């Protein structure tokens, strides 16, 4: 099945119909009740660089996993060069001629560059043992061939810069001489993407097919003629990239949902007091971030994966420390050294982390104990907790998050994800903090719970609290927030509020584009 085609294919459409290298027909994948891929159909021809576009959670990562043999599809069919393709593992996929450069780099950090490039089959020396010199020679050859001679084959991968690691990841994927190369956000860390473009174009000319997953439209326009858009697990396309405007692409990525009416009356006329003011905040992945959060306000944060939002939220929650910059609460500067300090500082900042099970709730404890943790001092006399009062308080409070009382006595691990999240939110509310820092609070929860969480947030800000919320779901941000900040490559790329707050606008900013520019260009 892995036959090398020497003829040079012209992706822009030679008259002769050819068998696509990759053909995907109606592929689906569900994790339990969660549908990650509904129906994906696409074709990639020999010599073609095919773009795959989609917002967070559209199913791109799942699709990459299916292609590279990490997960198996639920339904639909894949074929490679006309032969059914059903990889059982990453190695199986590689043998069939598909190799992937992952966004979450898959290098072994404590080994050398040479070892990483030659694994899993290191070259053998005389005694049948792995030969360091032969492997290094092979690595040097690869590094030279792909224009990365500045990286020493003897360096330990963990000491390389992120950009260097990404180049090694890509070179390793290419070194297997694949029929289909899958590049998942390959330029996220690359300083000079031209390096990659040259290599991809060169290999495409020799017949390799490439699936190029990126959110950077400029790169996609530079490299690809055709593309497919993923939206909520469905594929749209193929589209001719050159003939489609940026705005049309954003609209296809976002879909009809954007017509949903916003619930929050935005742009409150009354200027409220500032609850949190952040300026010049710089960390490992954020640069010079500044904004203010007012009392009675919900500020949304939109960003693609890995634009620094995680660090920003963890800094505000007291979990991580910034390198530079200041945070002030109600006008006075604070130094948040721990979440405990954040809770105690000023009117209090409470943080809801993304990893509910490992960082949020206490799995082996009862729901009641989970909820009342911040109240232990108030519920105890002489250091002893009155279990009757504890239960009564918990039973009274959980109605605020519409949690059934009978769940209080159960171990929280027996609850559904949605109910666990409600309990976590309840605990955070009981901490008494007046500012909530919510990192993707509706991730993986059911529709009903989402609605409850929205209501809780509304009530919280109506009572004068303030909320900073990051969500991977743009409609949610549009619906909930008064204003929305967009992070791109660690900086605040822009802020949308009022009528300008739309999903298209957020997508454009989040992918490094300026919606105003696009609009003015279109009207011009």
């Amino acid at each position: 099945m892995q036959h090398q085609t020497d003829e040079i294919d012209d992706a822009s459409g030679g008259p002769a119909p050819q068998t696509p290298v990759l053909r995907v027909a109606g592929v689906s994948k569900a994790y339990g009740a969660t549908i990650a891929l509904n129906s994906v159909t696409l074709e990639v021809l020999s010599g073609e660089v095919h773009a795959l576009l989609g917002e967070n959670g559209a199913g791109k990562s799942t699709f990459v996993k299916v292609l590279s043999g990490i997960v198996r599809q639920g339904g639909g069919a894949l074929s490679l060069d006309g032969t059914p393709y059903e990889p059982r593992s990453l190695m199986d996929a590689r043998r069939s001629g598909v190799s992937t450069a992952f966004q979450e780099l898959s290098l072994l950090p404590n080994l050398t560059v040479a070892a990483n490039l030659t694994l899993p089959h290191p070259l053998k020396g005389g005694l049948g043992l792995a030969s360091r010199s032969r492997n290094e020679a092979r690595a040097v050859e690869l590094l030279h061939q792909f224009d990365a001679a500045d990286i020493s084959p003897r360096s330990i991968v963990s000491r390389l810069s992120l950009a260097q690691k990404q180049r090694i990841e890509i070179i390793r994927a290419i070194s297997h001489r694949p029929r289909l190369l899958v590049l998942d956000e390959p330029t996220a860390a690359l300083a000079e993407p031209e390096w990659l473009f040259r290599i991809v174009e060169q290999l495409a000319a020799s017949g390799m097919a490439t699936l190029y997953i990126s959110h950077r439209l400029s790169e996609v326009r530079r490299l690809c003629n055709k593309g497919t858009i993923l939206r909520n697990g469905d594929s749209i396309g193929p589209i001719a990239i050159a003939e489609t405007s940026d705005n049309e692409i954003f609209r296809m990525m976002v879909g009809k949902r954007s017509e949903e009416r916003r619930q929050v009356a935005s742009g409150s006329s009354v200027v409220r007091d500032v609850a949190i003011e952040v300026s010049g905040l710089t960390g490992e992945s954020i640069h010079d971030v500044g904004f203010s959060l007012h009392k009675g306000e919900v500020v949304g944060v939109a960003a693609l994966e890995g634009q620094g939002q995680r660090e920003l939220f963890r800094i505000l929650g007291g979990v991580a420390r910034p390198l530079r910059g200041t945070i002030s609460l109600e006008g006075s500067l604070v130094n948040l050294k721990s979440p405990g300090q954040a809770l105690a500082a000023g009117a209090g900042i409470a943080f809801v982390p993304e990893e509910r099970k490992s960082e949020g709730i206490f799995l082996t404890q009862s729901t009641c104990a989970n909820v009342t943790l911040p109240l232990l001092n108030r519920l105890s006399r002489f250091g002893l907790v009155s279990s009757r009062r504890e239960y009564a308080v918990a039973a009274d409070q959980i109605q605020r998050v519409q949690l059934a009382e009978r769940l209080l006595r159960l171990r929280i691990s027996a609850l559904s994800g949605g109910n666990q999240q409600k309990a976590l939110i309840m605990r955070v509310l009981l901490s008494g903090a007046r500012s909530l820092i919510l990192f993707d609070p509706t991730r993986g929860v059911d529709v009903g719970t989402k609605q409850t969480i929205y209501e809780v947030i509304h009530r919280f800000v109506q009572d004068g609290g303030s909320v900073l919320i990051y969500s991977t779901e743009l409609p949610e941000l549009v619906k909930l927030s008064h204003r929305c900040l967009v992070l791109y490559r660690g900086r605040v790329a822009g802020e949308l509020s009022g009528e300008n707050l739309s999903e298209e606008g957020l997508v454009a900013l989040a992918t490094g584009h300026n919606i105003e520019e696009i609009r003015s260009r279109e009207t011009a």
Partner: protein
Amino acid sequence: MTKTSPSEHATAAPVPEASAKATAARSGFRIGPEGWTTLALFGLTVFMILASRLISSGFGSWQQAQAILLLSSFTIVLGFGQGLVILIGGLDLSVGVVMTLGGILAYRWIGTSLVALFWAIPCILLVTGCVGAINGLGATLLRLPPFIMTLATSLIIYGVFLGFTGGQPRGVASPALTSAYTSTFAGLPVILWLLLIFIILATLVQSHSSFGRRLYAVGTSPMAAYIAGLPVRLLIVAAYAISGATSGLAGILLVGYATGATLTMGQSYLLPSVAAVVVGGASILGGRGTYLATVGGALLLTTLSTIIEALGLAEGWRTVIYGLVIMLALLALRENMGIGWALTPKFRNTASRSRPGGAGHKPNKTGGNG
């Protein structure tokens, strides 16, 4: 992004009938799996003591039961500190040596004086508590694995003993301590009354105090506890400090029981202290277990070793049987807690894994052009 079926909103698994019935409706208290483990341990202990009549006619008597209680007092006291350390996800391998330290200090400081009892015991608890706190600081600030840190502490302390005592501790066993084991009050040895008070206080601290509740949180998930704003390091150091102090207390008691002190007097109580906690159903990963279950575990293990001793078997066989019974007890008692809890996620994963080969799979036969 993700579509979830609305049925998931129908909340969690229904309350099992049995536990619903066991719910004492008014107080908000019910016998959970941990409670049943404790009852099973106590029941098994009583059963074993009664059954031991079959081995020897002198067995199964009230006297023998008392003797077992006296013998298990050390493990019961040690088990509290060890249990707290295990609860927060650590392990204290220094309890044996710190127990010896407490014993040697009691031997030396208290002597025959009754007054010394009142200053020496708090001092000993303070010293051993500090040793525990050092363990805790090593485990938190230096981030050493707890078993390495506590092992290192115990080696150092042991070396200091050797240097200071020349291998032979000097002193006198306090008659007051000895009388705790020999004199009775209301028909029971005084020590058993003291032990009862200790157990009540310890249970209150572990399961009903805000401090204990925070330890459970730390043990379940240190990161979640940190994010919830708890002083995680302080709580960990406190757990080790308590373990040091209870080890010291156990050493003081042992001087009274054995009327003497040696450099290895505490050594043989290290493993039983861990075993009692684990047999009691606590998770070695932290976050689960109650002190009453540890007490049950200590009683069971002491009964077991007493009976095995009485069988008159060779030392090797005794150890083999002891080991086997501990294994069996663990398997039997973890049925509803440990094993089920550990395996469930795995099962869930296998169940949700999609069938090999997609449903709509058709070999795609498009003519090749190569």
